[in-house]
């Protein structure tokens, strides 16, 4: 099967659901979420059929590839989207509160459907090998995400988050475009796979402009993945955006950014003059990102914001892996880390969403005594936090283990040392949540109701964390 079919299937699903939303007269829009995730699930299953890239020589072949990286992350994005879609029904009350709706359920449908387009964009992004395609796919995802972040338009935080995301995102787009321009100007191509050859033909003097282009691309990718000093939007947007959108941002859009970064690096690896400069810079980025993300997270009191900082921190660990690309295991390690990251981050966002709805806020103090109000939610959150902190037998641990392994193998001793300090910091801020849930007394004793969808989500994600933590083999194998 042609890989392009998958993306178009997602787009088609989105259009079908849009039509359904428009023409089916139901106030309860939950069915859209279930339909959407069921459709995505089917697409996910389809992705396990034998997949070829576009036929060589066809026009698409210049843009799209179906290597293991793209296949892996396509599935990754599909799974993320399924879970985010399933979060939507739980988020209905918040939407109802902050949308100027004429009748019940207004706006819920679009909120459920737009992620599908984001998904399609990100899927294109992870399989494209051409800057132009990447640009278009990236903008498809990003612009839709601007909308989703601002979705609660009567909520100041959401508006603020959307505005910040918009301005900074557009700024980053500017740099991206400018970077493509320079690379194109120097090499005459926008195709990543063609880059090494094109560079090899370049005279010595043209390296500087090329490097400028690469630096600008790196800027915008750093923005996308939330690496210091381009991470500033991350905590603010995560805190303000609707919870499922924050979850989506932190998992899917970060992953897509990393895939592009990986592709660029893998292509340039054969060009030593560029590659070693890039590695040096990425090593540095990894170090400062680790420090900023982890240390600045320490004093946080708002869980959503904390997860934003944590997302920056994990970008740091992932960058550690990227900086170690020289090792054969680096890409499997990064993939594993992402798989882990998906499970643990989404699980914490799911629990956060339920608890925030039940207690009226997403500060850590709202979690006080959660273990007495809902042992299930508390246990799930504890598992997620343990995994984020990197406790063995959870996915987060094997992820960190592999990352540290490849980093050590590549001799990044400084990064590893920073990693140790920041892991300790991580223990502190993740365990702050555990403390609230288990040590503190709840302000009210009533049990928190948990819907069946959420229960299933928790069960699946929790099982995922443990499964990856105990038996990570298949995921590593998928990327080798």
């Amino acid at each position, binding site marked *: 099967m042609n890989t392009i079919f998958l993306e178009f299937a997602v787009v088609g699903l989105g259009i079908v659901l849009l039509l359904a939303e428009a023409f089916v007269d139901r106030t309860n829009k939950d069915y859209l979420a279930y339909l959407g995730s069921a459709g995505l699930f089917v697409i996910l299953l389809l992705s396990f059929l034998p997949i070829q890239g576009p036929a060589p020589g066809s*026009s698409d072949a210049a843009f799209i590839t179906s290597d293991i990286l793209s296949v892996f992350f396509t599935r990754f994005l599909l799974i993320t989207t399924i879970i985010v879609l399933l979060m939507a029904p739980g988020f209905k009350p918040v939407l109802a509160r902050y949308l100027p709706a004429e009748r019940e359920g207004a*706006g819920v449908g679009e909120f459920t459907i737009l992620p599908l387009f984001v998904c399609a964009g990100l899927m294109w992004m992870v399989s494209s090998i051409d800057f132009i395609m990447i640009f278009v796919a990236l903008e498809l995802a990003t*612009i*839709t995400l601007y*909308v989703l972040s601002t979705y609660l338009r009567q909520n100041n935080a959401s508006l603020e988050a959307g505005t910040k995301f918009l301005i900074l995102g557009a700024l980053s787009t500017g740099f991206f475009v400018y970077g493509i321009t320079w690379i194109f100007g120097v090499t005459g191509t926008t195709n990543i796979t063609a880059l090494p050859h094109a560079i090899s033909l370049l005279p010595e003097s043209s390296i500087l402009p090329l490097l*400028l282009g690469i630096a600008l691309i790196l800027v915008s990718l750093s923005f996308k993945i939330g690496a210091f000093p381009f991470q500033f939007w991350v905590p603010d947007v995560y805190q303000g955006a609707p919870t499922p959108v924050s979850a989506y941002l932190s998992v899917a859009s970060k992953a897509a950014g990393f895939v592009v970064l990986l592709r660029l690096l893998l292509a340039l690896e054969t060009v030593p003059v560029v590659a070693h400069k890039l590695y040096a810079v990425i090593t540095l980025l990894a170090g400062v990102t680790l420090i900023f993300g982890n240390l600045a997270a320490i004093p946080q009191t708002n869980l959503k914001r904390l997860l934003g900082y944590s997302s920056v921190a994990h970008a740091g660990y992932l960058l550690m892996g990227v900086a170690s690309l020289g090792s054969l295991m680096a890409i499997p390690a990064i993939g594993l880390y992402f798989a882990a990251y998906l499970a643990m981050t989404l699980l914490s966002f799911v629990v956060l969403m339920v608890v925030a709805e039940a207690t009226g806020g997403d500060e850590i103090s709202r979690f006080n005594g959660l273990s007495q109000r809902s042992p299930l939610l508390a246990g799930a959150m504890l598992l997620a936090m343990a995994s984020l902190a990197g406790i063995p037998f959870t996915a987060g641990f094997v992820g960190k283990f592999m990352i540290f392994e490849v980093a050590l193998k590549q001799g990044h001793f400084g990064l590893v040392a920073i990693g140790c300090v920041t892991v300790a910091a991580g223990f502190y801020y993740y365990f702050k949540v555990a403390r609230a849930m288990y040590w503190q007394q709840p302000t009210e004793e009533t049990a928190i109701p948990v819907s069946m969808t959420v229960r299933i989500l928790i069960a699946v994600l929790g099982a995922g964390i443990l499964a990856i933590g105990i038996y990570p083999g298949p995921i590593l194998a998928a990327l080798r």
Partner: protein
Amino acid sequence: MLLASYWFFSTLTIAFGATAILLRNPVSCAMSLAVCFISLAALFISLDATLIGIMQILVYAGAVMVLFLFIIMLLDLRMEKSRRLNFGATLGGGLVIAAFLSMLTKVILSDPEFAKPLPPLAASAPDNVRMIGMTLFHSYALPFEAIGVLLLSATVGVIVLSRRTLR
């Protein structure tokens, strides 16, 4: 001739670009921006990118600028309140811009390739519009389709965001 047009339009572009971000009245800004974009279109055309130049005028100077002006009017934005000038920020911003420009200049001047004169177009220069069309619909079919999705998604988004009440 080309040199003169280069100097004229580029000066115009830069000057109006600068006024667009320096003036206090949003409407003046928007108008300056429109002039900036139009002169940019002229630059495009002088570089033999006729279609793009025309699109630039249509889409940018036309649609986009109208949208800007429309919003400025809609929101009734007046003169930016003359808040206290943040000296530190201005200085910092200026420094960043200066550094950026200096590095850019260094890069541009470092490559002798960039100093070469304008090469002549082949005698049988194909039709600009036709070639872009060919490229776009033949080679770039996939991005083009993706852009279609982008526009759809943006449309939905804009509707959701700007309807007074949702149905």
